[in-house]
């Protein structure tokens, strides 16, 4: 790389040397451009790979979201039936089965309960009601919330206390 240029005309060194400098500069530009392009590509592949992982993790997010709605309705149905008497145990097993399938795919119920302070990281306040609990505390869980691989898929929907009037 560091070889002296072979100049056949020692008394006229300028022209070829200028030319050489120019060509060397061009070479450096091209080489660095090429290296960058190659690096960009390798980085892109890495990012794509990571993104594919994300897609695999969250790819069925929409489906799971809709299935959560089914579980909600299932629970509403169970609650209504329970009022009019005991329910065949098998129905509960079916419900548990659905939940189990979703659990295996990374779904996890958010653990908040009445009496906890309201944390918007986990819950969404749907309304505020009078209660004997201190203001800002969860009075009632309306809909359970869920996480998918740690990301909040749906916050727990809650009623919070505004204290006593």
């Amino acid at each position, binding site marked *: 790389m560091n070889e002296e240029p072979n100049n056949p005309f020692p008394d006229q060194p300028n022209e070829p040397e200028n030319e050489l400098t120019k060509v060397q500069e061009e070479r450096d530009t091209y080489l660095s451009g090429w290296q960058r*392009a190659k690096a960009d590509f390798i980085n892109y592949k890495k990012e794509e790979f990571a993104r594919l992982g994300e897609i695999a993790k969250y790819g069925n997010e929409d489906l799971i979201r809709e299935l959560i709605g089914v579980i909600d*309705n299932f629970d*509403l149905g169970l*609650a209504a039936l329970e009022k009019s008497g005991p329910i065949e145990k098998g129905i509960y097993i079916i419900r548990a089965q659905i939940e189990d399938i979703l659990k295996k795919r990374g779904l996890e119920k958010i653990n908040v309960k009445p009496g906890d302070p309201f944390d918007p990281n986990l819950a969404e306040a*749907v309304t505020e009601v009078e209660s004997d609990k201190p203001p800002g505390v969860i009075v009632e869980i*309306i809909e359970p919330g869920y996480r998918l691989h740690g990301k909040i898929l749906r916050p727990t929907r809650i009623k919070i206390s*505004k204290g006593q009037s």
Partner: protein
Amino acid sequence: MSKIIGIDLGTTNSAVAVMKGGEPEILENAEGNRTTPSIVAVSKAGERIVGTLAKRQAVTNPKGTIFSVKRLMGRKFTDPEIERDKVWLPYEIKAGPTGGVEVKMGDGWYSPEAISAEILRKLKTDAEAKLGEKVEEAVITVPAYFDDSQRQATKNAGEIAGLKVNRIINEPTAAALAYGLDKQKSEKIVVYDFGGGTFDISVLEIGDNTVEVKATGGDTHLGGDDFDKKINEYLVAEYKKQAGIDLSKDALALQRLKEGAERAKHELSVAVETEINLPYITSDASGPKHFTMKLSRAKLEELVREYIDRSVKLTEETVTAAPPKGAGFKLSEINEVILVGGQTRMPAIVEAVKKLFGKDPHQGINPDEVVAVGAAIQGGILQGDVKDILLLDVTPLTLSIETLGSVATPMIQKNTTVPTSKSQIFSTAADNQPAVEIHVLQGERPLASDNKTLARFILDGLPPSPRGLPQIEVTFDIDANGILSVKAIDKASGKSQSVRIEASTALSKDEIEKLKKEALEHATEDAEKKSLIEAKNQAESLVYLSEKSLRDAGDKVPEDVKKSITEKIEELKKVTAGNNLEAIQSASTTLSAEIQKIGQSMYNEEKPQDTSPPKEPGTPS
């Protein structure tokens, strides 16, 4: 140098994008969402929260939750717009010391800039987390109608958030940038932006490296939220009619109904009918009640027709009215129309805009993200990312090779970034074929004769062999200068031929557009022709296969079977000479069933001695 991010600081939602490897990319926030609600709150516990979290507590904290602060940015307290907004905003506002607006959040008074800065700070922090590096500079977008003080206020908000605001650009300009329309020489562009809470229409004129806003219009209080409200009202009213129960007092039922309605609205952008199912929505003395209702796209459109019509009327006014009220252009003069904002996903809106201008609007980029994407591109330009020394071109048209039946088989698809190279193995169409002709084509049509011939050459000296056996590898290579080399090599003999085509991409822009247009126009007719050719090709292969099988089987097949097959072969040959697709297909099916008798007869005979299976012909050239 840290990256310059592009920020769409919206009235209802904001988004952030950045240039990565030469392409704009939306950055997700800490909650994993691509847009962030433009909401700031001081929680009852005194904590400052922004975005989705602020939204989750909004209902129970109306006085401490600030949304739509963009409406207040850089305005005087005496501004008629403020007078109007004061009435419905649930939080308190008052005149500031310099005549501007101040907002009460929790126990303190804040300027709109300070509130906006909270949003920007979250966007910045989340972008840093996502990128894994510090972010110090940004391009922020504002509506085209923002005046100097509103722009300055936005810039100040950025500075407060610790961002050097490199440039404030107009939202419609950003949208045009996202679609690459800034490179046009001279164009008139309309940007139709239907957001959650505002409807903006902007008319732009693009000249030599300049974008001029010719007119702006719209309605600052018309948006997708109005659509949702309308649907909700309708559902509540319908349910009252059907079940005699008023859901409007039941916060829980309303919440579920709102979600159901929103989902239905989204589904109706692709489906023509959807069903809203909300079991156990409420209960009365007779037991639990369910909400099930079908909603058709037609009904939805009927419900919101007045809003769409209004937006179209406003659009027409803004384009055609004489300056300063409008741009003073004819509708037919508009070269491009861009759709921005989530509500423009609604097919009825796309149709209405299309009808007004008589042309298809641009809508390929996610309408919720297009402005942030444009801002990121502007950031890239400022950073020098976009003007890369190594500008890579794309092939404007598909490059193909002619195969059996005059079909153009694509080798390099249009819009492939060059330099690139593709190889594929072809074969012969006849037994003992001595040579193949390589016919190089350019264009989008499926038939060779409808495309432009770039070159033809012959590869000869193929050793005698049955059809489908020779392997001829054809390689298309385009270098960075757009020069196409085509090489064909016979794998068996090693013989090769090649050609270099200098002018493969040297079509003028008009020519390229013409070819693309033709391809679209002839798509149906071309597809029919292509299926006919494919059917003929299959028929010919079948005839060949049948004749060969008959010969191979020899005496092992009874005469009557032979005769019947020969008849079916003749029949297929006859219809293949014609152009009746159905006849060819049905004759092929008949023959294909008939030749199975060869196998059957042979198995019924004694175990055969030497019968090699018939060769499957490849894709012959």
